[in-house]
């Protein structure tokens, strides 16, 4: 089972310090963009990662490739500890793991031709030796993503969004990676083009045996491409499982709310659809609620929610479907309450903090 895991994260954290200005910079707290994520991505699968804007899904994708430095936890890629890599090994990692970015109008250098952009990984990694071989490889890559190789000498501003995104995909594929992070790769495209790019990604995945992490805020798109879906809320994975299970039988109130926001393309079903509209905004990742971080907006929050930080536990009918929710049994780490320890909680305090019922809300 562990052999077919290509990439795994354990307790991954990315905290951005908040500095108060002035000459003597002080660190006053942190934005906990990614806050203790455990995640396994299996070889050859597409894992969909969904969540609202600002929940940390892009930061997580960047941290997996060390495009953002994790502040805690580990990432293992094909048996290699990514968090401990030196400069040279990191470069090899970046050949084997690529990224497709959200905005195709921002992700291509406006001063470089398509050929220069696509051949950059080849030059960086010393692949396909001389200029002519590289040009041949660039043509091959452009054809692979459905572009005419004749466009190689043009500049990005001459292309439409969909075409640019194809160029971005060609660049990501140039080093023949095993793993691709698609960070909202279709979010800024027209709907008709979204389907084309989505299909292109699926086709490429099958043909090249890629493993994909497909990051999106759009649960309906993810349901179509992903084998498994992970749902993120405020820096944590709160539910994960096979796409059919998470998309069809969600077990965590947040996923249920997300799913109920997806319109159904059938008028009668659409009318009878129950909608759960969440109250309020996402709390700031600089001030995460204690215990379950979703409790401030959860329609079913009850006593243990503020006091126990829920861990992922098996839920539902399907194997491998996990959710972090006390509705399925209170499992997790008790929280140290600040009013119990005015000097600030120590690790020891956290361990023996009393669980207090009835002090929620």
């Amino acid at each position, binding site marked *: 089972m562990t052999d077919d895991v290509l990439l795994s994260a354990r307790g991954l954290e990315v905290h951005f310090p908040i500095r108060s200005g002035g000459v003597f910079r002080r660190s006053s707290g942190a934005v906990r963009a990614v806050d203790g994520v455990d995640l396994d991505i299996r070889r050859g699968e597409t894992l969909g990662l969904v969540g609202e804007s600002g929940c940390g899904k892009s930061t997580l994708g960047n941290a997996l*490739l060390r*495009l953002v430095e994790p502040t805690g936890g580990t990432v293992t890629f094909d048996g290699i500890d990514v968090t401990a890599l030196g400069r040279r090994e*990191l*470069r*090899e990692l*970046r*050949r084997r793991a*690529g*990224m497709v*970015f*959200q*905005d195709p109008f*921002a*992700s*291509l*250098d*406006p*001063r*470089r*031709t398509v050929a220069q952009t696509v051949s*950059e*990984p080849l030059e*960086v*990694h010393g692949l396909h030796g001389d200029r002519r071989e590289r040009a041949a490889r660039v043509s091959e890559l452009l054809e692979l993503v*459905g*572009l*005419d190789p*004749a*466009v190689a*000498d*043009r*500049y990005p501003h*001459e*292309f*439409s969004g*969909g*075409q640019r995104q194809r160029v*971005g995909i060609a*660049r*990501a594929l*140039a*080093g023949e990676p095993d793993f691709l992070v698609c960070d909202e790769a279709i979010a800024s495209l027209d*709907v008709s083009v*979204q*389907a*084309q790019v*989505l*299909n*292109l990604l*699926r*086709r490429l995945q099958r043909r090249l045996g890629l493993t994909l992490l497909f990051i999106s805020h*759009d649960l*309906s*798109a993810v349901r*179509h*491409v992903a084998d498994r879906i992970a749902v993120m809320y405020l820096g944590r994975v709160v539910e994960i499982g096979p796409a059919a299970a998470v998309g069809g039988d969600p077990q965590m109130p947040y996923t249920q709310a997300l799913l109920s926001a997806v*319109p159904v*393309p059938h008028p009668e079903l659409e009318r009878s659809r129950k909608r759960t509209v969440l109250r309020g905004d996402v709390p700031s990742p600089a001030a995460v609620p204690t215990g379950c971080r979703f409790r401030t907006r959860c329609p079913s929050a009850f006593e243990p929610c503020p006091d126990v930080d829920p861990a992922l536990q098996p839920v539902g009918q399907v194997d491998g479907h996990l959710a972090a929710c006390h509705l399925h049994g209170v499992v997790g780490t008790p929280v140290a309450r600040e009013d119990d320890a005015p000097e600030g909680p120590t690790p020891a305090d956290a361990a023996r903090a009393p669980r207090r019922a009835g002090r929620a809300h």
Partner: protein
Amino acid sequence: MTQLPTPGAVPAEPPPAELPPTRTARPRWRETLGLLARNPTAAVSALVLIAIVLVAVFDETLAPDGPNEQDQSRALQAPSWGHPFGTDELSRDILSRVLLGAATSLRVGFLSVAFALVVGTLIGLLAGYYGRWVDDVLMRVMDMLFAFPAVLLAIAIVAVRGAGPTNAILAIGIVYVPIFARVTRASVLGVREEVYVRASRSVGASDLRLITRHVLPNAAPPIIVQTSISLAFAVLAEAALSFLGLGPQRPNPSWGLMLADSRGFIDQAWWYSVFPGLAIVLTVLCFNLLGDGLRDVLDPRQRTLMAGGGR
């Protein structure tokens, strides 16, 4: 997001490629030149500057007389057909000396700005790209240099190192380093955060490659504009240093020196100070107008540093 094709309906063949764009590729710099040509002020300035540079290059062929040719019979003569700009107190031909002075003024201007451009851009790149303590240290040093009035600092440098053209170049160059450092840093700070820089890093590009291939080319427009405008001020600074006797030394002609020498004769021979002065005004004006034009073409948003400071 409404409807997507169901997973089963994925076509085996690639989707029809979108129509290739019809416009042919054109290098950026040609586009820039085209836009510049449509700005009459900038275009005329550029032509005049090219003429001035040509004069400076071919000065010895163009000048009717040698720089120090004297004929005591014709001292301080008013402009005439024989001497269109008149003659000075040593009866040297002022036209010849203005033409020959162009080489001195432009050489000092170009070399000092080249020095400031290279050093300042490098400092700005390092400060802007690496940030943190590198930024703090480098930019505080720049702030210290910036705190001195420009000409005063140049005078101090020349006073320490001795008068002469080489030290004048160095002095003016050092004075302009902080400006280039600041302009470059500001530009780099923006470009550094661009997604395409992160995209290149994601495929494994090194810092050196990111800086040279992506950051510098995209951060260049304000630096180019600053170069043009700094040339204007450098020519002016050279004139000021020469005027004070700290630049090129007599008897070689330099516009600033000629102005200084003409001071004693300003009520007798207006032509003596007017023509070198006009040469300075024309050159400075053209560099400034060209800089404005370049800014409109390359970088319409950035207006602060060049418009404000009197350097």
